[in-house]
């Protein structure tokens, strides 16, 4: 399989998958249970979800390891099993997709706050991420996806942890921004300008944003990133801001709408486009068409 970074280097736009958590819940994951518990108990469910996104046209499939750093798993008493939980998730996706898609290993925030603002020591947080990265990379992940970060130091520790395990594995890193009257900031006060320089400094190959926003805001975020970086961009929007309808959580952005916005993101120079909370294989399918159109057009020109 051609390396993901080389395909992006040739100007290709790659489609990543959508949400996992909601699909897990639809398959009986009880509320309150850690989503990563499934990795050991029912890896076949992870395979099924990966296949759904693969069939919908995603070329990058994420592992169910967002909260699988030992620090985060410790909340559920699963810290000791972090290695096995991460490995199992990578292997499940690999079984489902073979070499037809890239296995992207997700790594979310530790849930702890670094000193001096919180009580966590940087060395301990790094060690936690390193253990997770070791397991993900050993199990055969094609790319690492550090995501939903709000603290730039934590994001850097995670990227550096991946780099310490493998100097060559491609690393994507995204942060979650909030629109304010003064521009976009993470809750920890990180601007897109700062994210651009610091994520690159830590060793990320692709940078961008996920979660927190619907597609329209994400187009603005992508354009802002473009001002400050030459690195390829990665954007994973939520399917809008959730509403509750008749007792059910409902995400307002339809597959058609997100496909339309996908066109905008491509126009803004985004290299990897996927979905976050509320997106489904239907969204992926609709976005696939737009990405394919782009492919045709660029071949024609």
């Amino acid at each position, binding site marked *: 399989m051609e390396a993901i970074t080389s395909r992006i280097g040739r100007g290709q736009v790659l489609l990543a998958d959508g949400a996992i958590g909601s699909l897990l819940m639809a398959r009986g994951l009880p*509320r*309150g249970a850690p989503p990563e518990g499934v990795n050991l108990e029912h890896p076949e469910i992870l395979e099924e979800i990966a296949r759904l996104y693969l069939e919908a046209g995603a070329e990058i499939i994420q592992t169910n390891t967002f909260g699988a750093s030992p620090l985060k798993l410790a909340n559920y008493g699963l810290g000791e099993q972090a290695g096995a939980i991460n490995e199992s998730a990578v292997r499940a996706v690999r079984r489902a997709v073979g070499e037809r898609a890239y296995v992207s290993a997700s790594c979310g925030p530790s*849930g702890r706050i670094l000193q*001096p603002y919180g009580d966590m020591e940087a060395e301990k947080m790094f060690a936690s991420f390193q253990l997770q990265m070791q397991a993900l990379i050993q199990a055969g992940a094609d790319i690492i996806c550090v995501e939903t970060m709000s603290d730039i130091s934590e994001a850097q520790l995670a990227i550096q942890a991946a780099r310490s395990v493998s100097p060559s594995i491609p690393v994507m890193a995204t942060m979650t921004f909030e629109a304010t009257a003064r521009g976009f900031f993470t*809750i*920890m*006060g990180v601007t897109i300008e700062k994210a651009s320089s610091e994520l690159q400094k830590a060793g990320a190959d692709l940078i961008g944003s996920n979660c927190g926003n619907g597609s329209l805001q994400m187009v603005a975020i992508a354009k802002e990133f473009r001002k400050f970086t030459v690195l390829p961009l990665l954007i994973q929007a939520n399917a809008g801001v959730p*509403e*509750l309808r008749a*007792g059910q959580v409902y995400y307002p952005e339809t597959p058609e709408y997100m496909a339309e916005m996908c066109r905008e993101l491509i126009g803004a120079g985004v290299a990897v486009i996927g979905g976050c909370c509320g997106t489904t294989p239907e969204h992926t399918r609709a976005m696939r068409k737009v990405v394919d159109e782009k492919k045709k057009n660029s071949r024609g020109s």
Partner: protein
Amino acid sequence: MEILKKIAQCLEVGDDAGVPPLVRQALAEGIVAKTILDDGLIAGMNTVGEKFRVHEIFLPDVLLAAKAMYAGMDVLKPLLLSAGVSSRGRVVIGSVQGDLHDIGKNLVGIMLKGAGFEVIDLGNDVAAEKFVAAAKSHDACVIGMSALLTTTMPVMKEVVDLLNKENLSGKIKTIIGGAPVSQNYAGEIGADAYGYDCAQAVAGVKKLAAAVP
């Protein structure tokens, strides 16, 4: 009272080592503990909350200010207790079942303490029954619930329904917050209030607590 202003400013910049000596100095000047709390620490924390609300400062600044406030509270606590200063009421808070996103909730807890409430923090993964049981056993007037995952939002409705079922809805008020919830959602499930951010949450709790007989 210059010293109280100094305390507030010291807290606003998150100087946790600077606050206790100033608090002691204020006491030595004969200012009563309750005044130092209200016009020094809480005043400073309110400014911090307001600046956070308008995105002038961010979470790190608030966390440092909270540390500074606790440092000041440690000096005042024994005096407040012995003076029998009554609290504004008790508030039970927690992240609803399934959530481990507790930064927002912790922040609201800090701000509520700063505003003079007694806070019972149930932590994360709090089930509806636990919220209601804790509110009853602590004689709380408000339950504050936070969710950051859409999948856990329905637990908030379970709490409201449970209070209704137990005929407690007038006596124990509910306020909700967190990224996926909204004023509309609060209305839909019958929660008494919605806090868009920490400052709004504290203002909401104040209003609700005052309305509870």
